[in-house]
């Protein structure tokens, strides 16, 4: 089963960061509406199953 680690949106949090935990990353996505674009980031564990995530996009 795919998980967040395999997603294009997953960026591992570097060691030394205040919120570093092994396997933890930022889920970064670009959003847009009529007013314009923005990026949002939420913390996520890499081993979180992504089968229910509508925005999952496999890393190449």
């Amino acid at each position, binding site marked *: 089963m795919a998980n967040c680690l395999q997603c294009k949106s997953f960026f591992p949090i570097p060691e030394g960061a205040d919120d570093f935990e092994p396997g933890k990353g930022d889920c970064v996505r670009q959003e847009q509406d009529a007013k314009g674009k923005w990026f949002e*980031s939420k913390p996520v564990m890499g081993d979180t199953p992504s089968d229910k995530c509508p925005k999952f996009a496999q890393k190449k």
Partner: protein
Amino acid sequence: MATRHQPIEYKGKVIEFPFDNPVEETIPDSELHEHLAKPTTERTKRLKARCRWKHSAGGEFVEGDVKAGIERMRLITEAYKKDTGKPHVIRRANLLSNLLNNCTVIVQEDELIVGFNAENPNFVPLYPEQSYMACMDYILDPKIAPQPVEEAKELAEFWIEHSLQKKCETYFTQHELEVMYSMSTLETPGFATGFNSVVPPYETVIEDGLLKRIEMAEQHIAVAKEVLGSENWNAPERLKLLPQIDIWQAMIIASKAAIAWARRHGRLCRIIAENFETNPKRKEELLMMADICQRVPAEPCQGLRDGMQAKWFTFLICHALERYSSGYAHKPDKLFWPLYKASVIDKSFQAMSHEDAVELFECERLKISENAPGKSRGYREVFPGSNDLFIFTLGGLERDGSDGCNDCTDAILEAARNIRTTEPSIVFRWNPKGRLKTKNLVFQCVRDGLGYPSIKHDIIGTQQMMYFAQFSQNKNGATIEEAHDWANVLCMSPGLVGRRKTQKSRSEGGGSIFPAKIMEVTLNNGYDWSFTGMQSGLQTGNVEDFKTFDDIWEAFRKQYRWGMDLMIRAKDVSRYWETKILENPFISAIDDGCMELGRESMELSEQPNGWHNPITTIVAANSMIAIKKLIFDDKKYTFAELKKALHSNWEGFEEMRKDFQNAPKWGNDDPYADEIVKAFYEDIISGEMRKIVNYSGGPVLPTGQAIGLYMEIGSRTGPTPDGRYGGEACDDGGISPYMGTDKKGPTAVLRSVSKVNAATQKANLLNQRLSAPIMRSDKGFKIWLAYMNTWHDLNIDHIQFNVVSNEEMKAAQQEPEKHGDLIVRVAGFSARFVDLSTYAQNTIMARHEQDFEPGDFEYLGLEL
């Protein structure tokens, strides 16, 4: 075509009034404001065009995408449920930490300052720990409900038992709660509405950085533990250290979370730059922003970009994330002067031009314009055409008595003039030492119809800080130097800014009482016949039995005193519970007093600053004048006849109504009227209020103002003896003449207002509308400056202006889509005209446009 002011004959000369900007000769009056915006850069032009306004009109958000978010509710509840058994202040710190570590962080395209208060830039956060009713306003409205709504309902319901509202209600009778919750004689207390204010000590964040604050707290804990473990245990002395250790520990948790959260923004900027952004210039900007967020607020700020970002992060935590507070109280020209100097003048760090600084301040204005809390519907109605109260203060004097205006002051004013947003509003502290260059920029903002800066008398404010200092319970009130460092806490009332001693809660000062409605119930033995149908006040007698004017005067006094006692009791009960369940560990961490003493921000109060807002006072005062004149002096009518007329809403009593309407009115330099109003303000409005001693040990003083409540309370107030019909708006400012009744010119108003001793009041809002053709003429600044200098010399606390033609407002009513830039001053805040209800718009149009005549020029000592 534009309307030029007709020539005036003055001192033997004919004075012409050509436009200061000749181009305006050809701009029709009906569209002037649409030509005034000049954003400094293409970026701020773009940011304004796509601004996610959070304005409300008639309680509804103007922009359809605005909704409540669920993230804050979810994350604070998750933390709170896990944490039972820990000291409460640590639970509050963990609640904040869970929120900051796990919330969504956002970076929008084009922006230079990052950070938002909810998970989507169109959302507003909710505060279930403060007010269940305010949350339900959203949950029950499908247009704006947080999703999934069932989860939101469960979260809100969890907090009922833990909420401030539930804790405080126990101490009031059912009748007292009904009177307060009916919002007609008294404002519903903050423990039920969730409305709050705070003055964060930004200075410690900018100057020290949070890592230093953590180090300080750690050292305090280490010393405390040493004392605990030292020889000869002494319980009464040493047990006091336990809660102090908890508070310092909570400060550390909160500060670390704040640093990590800021750095998450930096990391996001870097990820965008390295993986998504293709424009090299924007890539460079994002990397610069990543560096800034990595360093601040962890470390002291070194340049202006650092300062703006650190302040923004601090603002979000203090006003939106740790707890909701309205406001934006600080003095940015003083706060940022060292950073402006480093960046713009010395160019030693984050080198930039003055125009770059102006751009940054424009960006800030647009960030504020996108920021809103999840306020209750009632409070969205009270601030029509705006998103909340965001007000900062400029000018005044430095601690050493030198002019507080500097080039940073000017950059902030230029940004306001250029970008034209309703928020943040600005207060300017007027002192004779203030430089002319800055005062001219203040004038330009006023002339352009922004409604701000509103002007405060600098010396009155400073003296007031000294006055309250004497009541400090730990004998550490403001020093003479510190008393110079003040800003308006919200719209009107001064409070200290700085590293400590700032106001931390609206339970110290804020909240309202409504004299017009109190007058109405006084006339009916305490009974509210026109709105609630209940006994809203004391039984002070049937007015038909009153023999002298003193009888009605004293009856009103009793009603007012009862209401005031209840209001301050409500605030202090709230304060008591805020110290126990709404601690703010982050605010405590950045306050030097809290840090030094190991005391929490809600509990420690070094500088009392008690006030309460009488709103609709002039309707009551004008009513007193009419009663004295027509019932007791002229004996033309009896109270019985008056009551009959009022209970008919004057229908069938038109002649009588005209008599009461034409009785002397406040604001015309009329000795008969003014003597009564002076006594009303000093003897009752202030005299009764200042008998109260509040939580902080000081008196409570009246801050007369209005915000949008003059309309809301007007709609709930029946007909009054000043000739007003039931449901009509009341007076639009604390000491402002009633709309349209100030007929003797602008200087007559000043003379009236000057008769009330400003030292007996906390503040009093004076709304004036000045002639647009005069203000926009080449003599506008000279006339206005003379007017302002006279205002100052008359020792008047405050003044603010509308400069807008009825032609433009009528055109905007017809075609609102063409008048998005038309801004008006409501009272205490400015609003986009087209976002106001028609009822509200009409009250602005009804305000008398003061024109200047030769007699006024003479009084002002003008040479033209």
